């Protein structure tokens, strides 16, 4: 038995954690941008350029999360399941959005955003939106029942489909 099979079996024995989201605020994002390092995948969630009454704002990054490839694969599976279930019940989502050429140029906010390291991601599809909860579970094998959500990002299904396709092609 390989290391990761052993690891998966161990993790299956641990009861699923309870997510504590009492101190987190959901941030809306309509584009995703992927970064790749040798050992992790970095997902940037941000806002596309929009014209507000005070002028046009450039695209900005709001949240940046980094995860290892094992977590990324699990996130990919969760995204696939969420999209399939949504399309089965409510019909086709349409073409993916929030990625590709339109997000080639973006600027970070005034202060650089440091990536949050996560090893657990929960994807919840509601009829309107997809909610991403990112957690750094620092005691995955202990009897910890409660994990604290560090970042909560909400995107539309079209943006989520774009993210799914980007992660699938990257991995």
């Amino acid at each position, binding site marked *: 038995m390989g290391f990761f099979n052993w690891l998966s079996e161990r993790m299956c024995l641990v009861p699923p954690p309870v997510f504590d989201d*009492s101190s987190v605020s959901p941030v809306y994002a309509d584009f995703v941008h992927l970064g790749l390092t040798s050992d992790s995948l970095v997902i940037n969630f941000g806002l596309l350029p929009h014209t507000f009454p005070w002028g046009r704002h450039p695209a900005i990054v709001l949240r940046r999360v980094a995860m290892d490839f094992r977590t990324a694969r699990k996130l990919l599976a969760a995204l696939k399941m969420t999209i399939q279930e949504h399309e089965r019940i409510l019909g086709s989502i349409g073409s993916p959005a929030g990625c590709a050429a339109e997000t080639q140029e973006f600027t970070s906010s005034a202060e650089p955003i440091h990536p949050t390291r996560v090893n657990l991601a929960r994807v919840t599809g509601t009829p309107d939106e997809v909610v991403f909860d990112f957690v750094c579970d620092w005691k995955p094998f202990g009897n910890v029942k409660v994990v604290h959500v560090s970042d909560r990002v909400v995107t539309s299904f079209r943006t989520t489909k774009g993210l799914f396709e980007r992660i699938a092609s990257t991995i």
Partner: protein
Amino acid sequence: MGFFGRLSRRRKSVAEVVFDDARVSTTYPDWVAFTAMREACMIDFVLLAHEPARDRQYATVLYRAAMTGYTAKQLLTALQTAIQRCEQQFGKIQGHAGRLPQAGEIAVTGEPPDPMYVNCARVTPTPEGVVMDFAFNFASAFVSGKVRILHRVVVGFYLAETLVQRMLSEIRDHEFRFGEIEIDV
């Protein structure tokens, strides 16, 4: 029946949701802007400051709420109802439509806050204005339970009327381009 029409049958109304307003922060803006985008709508609650020497206005975005067109339309209906009640008692309210400063006349100071996503908005009319509670109902209003209010915004009736007029015109444009947003069937 469209997408949102199918959903509306499965939702709980805002009146059925129990809100938890412990430790909620409150904003008192003096200007408001509404922007409809392809996937979502955004409301900026703004504090304006005027610099007489340069005859220039500065805006600080206090709170930015992002929501779907469905939630925006629900909020619009609730605001219209609240204003209607007020007008029945005190007479016609004139909004500030058409007086919004142009892009060149106003400068935004500081970084605008991150757009906080909300999918539930409660409007409470008071004798002096309207209290808007923005919340994120994780269960998407299908199950019972308390919903934590993320932010509370208090505006006067004039500003509420301005917001209604902005929302009406932006939502009309949005529906013209992307199709009707159904909230009730």
